[in-house]
């Protein structure tokens, strides 16, 4: 099932390349990026049981990291000159590093405070932090404010022409695969098992000498960094970043990818993002109210297939494959 999902995600753009349908490649790239964001959140939500409604903050921070660095590089204007010089860059690896570091730092600050709460309070506090950053971006005229920030060139990756849709898809696909490998390793590590155990029984985890707060904070930071990387790629794909990337609707969409595919399933977000993009493309072409159908699908999954699409097809025993 997992191999099939990756094969479909890789096969569709290859077919589109042969059929000269670059738009389909862009859709597949979008799916890969959304899947990456979902893979990030899935560590916190699926393994850690942390329902974060503020992950769009990390997605947006990653996007703005790209936007700010690229716009300064484009304008040949330094980001700051004193006390030390920081210049913009068009180098994708450098942008990814900055996006991940800044998202991880934000996740550390937000997580350190919000993880002191649980349940509905955790959901509300992450939502509040997310909205705080959203409104900050709206009122930040230096980088476009409400209108957002356009980047006129695609950033560079050594040895590739990232303006070619298939090559940019390849970059996103490889990053998604690396993130899946990382999450698989985390899930099987003592840390991942302890995180999962903390979700099931916090008191028991304390009694064997582990502090659930620390486990969750580390997971939240890793989760934020991966989602931030997805944000940087998304901004690069659109060559545009705006406060919409930081909105609570975006957080909701990332959660939807996970629920559709299967919460806590490694490939859940991949399948969820692919289905989401498919529905957005097919139903969105039929009606502007396509979210109604998406809502009906979600209801069906929540009521009848609690393990998501993977759970319905593979059964509950294989929850973490």
């Amino acid at each position, binding site marked *: 099932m997992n191999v099939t999902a990756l094969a479909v995600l890789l096969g569709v753009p290859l077919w589109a390349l042969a059929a000269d349908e670059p738009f389909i490649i862009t859709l597949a790239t979008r799916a890969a990026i959304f899947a990456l964001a979902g893979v990030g959140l899935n560590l916190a939500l699926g393994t850690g049981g942390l329902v974060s409604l503020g992950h769009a903050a990390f997605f947006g921070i990653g996007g703005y990291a790209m936007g700010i660095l690229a716009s300064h590089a484009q304008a040949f204007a330094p980001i700051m000159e004193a006390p030390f010089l920081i210049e913009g860059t068009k180098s994708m690896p450098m942008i990814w590093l900055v996006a991940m570091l800044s998202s991880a730092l934000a996740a550390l600050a937000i997580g350190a405070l919000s993880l002191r709460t649980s349940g509905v309070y955790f959901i509300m506090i992450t939502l509040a932090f997310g909205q705080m950053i959203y409104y900050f971006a709206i009122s930040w005229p230096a980088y476009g404010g409400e209108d957002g920030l356009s980047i006129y060139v695609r950033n560079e990756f050594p040895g590739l022409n990232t303006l070619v849709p298939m090559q940019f898809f390849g970059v996103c696909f490889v990053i998604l695969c690396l993130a899946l490998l990382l999450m698989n390793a985390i899930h099987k590590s003592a840390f991942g098992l302890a995180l999962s155990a903390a979700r099931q029984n916090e008191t028991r985890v*304390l009694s064997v000498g582990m502090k659930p707060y620390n486990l969750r904070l580390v997971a939240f930071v890793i989760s934020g960094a991966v989602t931030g990387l997805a944000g940087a790629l998304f901004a690069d794909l659109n060559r545009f970043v705006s406060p919409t990337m930081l909105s609570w609707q975006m957080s909701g969409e990332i959660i939807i990818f996970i629920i559709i595919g299967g919460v806590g399933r490694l490939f859940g977000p991949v399948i969820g993002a692919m289905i989401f993009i498919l529905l957005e493309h097919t139903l969105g072409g039929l009606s502007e109210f396509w979210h109604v159908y998406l809502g009906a699908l979600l209801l069906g999954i929540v009521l009848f297939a609690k393990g998501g699409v993977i759970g319905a097809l593979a059964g509950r025993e294989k929850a973490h494959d």
Partner: protein
Amino acid sequence: MSLIELKNVAAFYGPSQALFDVSLSVDEGEVLALMGRNGMGKTTTVKVMCRMLKNSAGTVQFVGQDIGGLPSYKAARLGIGLVPEGRRCFANLSVFENLIAAARKGAWDFTAVCQLFPRLEERRDQSASSLSGGEQQMLAIGRALMTNPKLLILDEATEGLAPVIRHEIWEAVAKLKSETGMAIIAIDKSLKELGQVADRAVILEKGRTVWTGEFGDLGPEETDRYLGV
């Protein structure tokens, strides 16, 4: 020096006082039977030892250190291993995952635990939720051992299990005592089985220590008066 020592401990659940004056100590290599009828404060005393419940009066010392201000995970790191009442394994994890999730460096590793409980090796990749009650209990003991504790606390370790499984678990406890010299506090309703491993006994009555002594000194008067057997 005692491994763990409680002196005149009192503790509350909200406004209700559960412990009034509990004192006990366990030396290295010693097995202590903590006894008393239901509701007399045995599990509450265990919670105080593991720092899951704060004592409002008295002192709790572990290896000579006052652990009164420590959170439970730090007490566990110092070397207090708990096998809780009701087992409560991590249901979604496999046997192997349950064990390595809690592992800390030391003599007790997966191989050593499987030597003590060979069934766990056979069930290595099976989900904890699919184990029998006895196997779950073995897993709970194994999980506590994987933290390489200095003191192992068994709270009703054989409750609700079939006689054959109870026998297997008590044999393992006896092996722990004879081969590793691990200090153990055991809570159980079976005097006969406790008697096979316990060196000393402490009896609690209404949140107070009412009897302390060699297990062999427990006479009919004490068992009848405090334990109702």
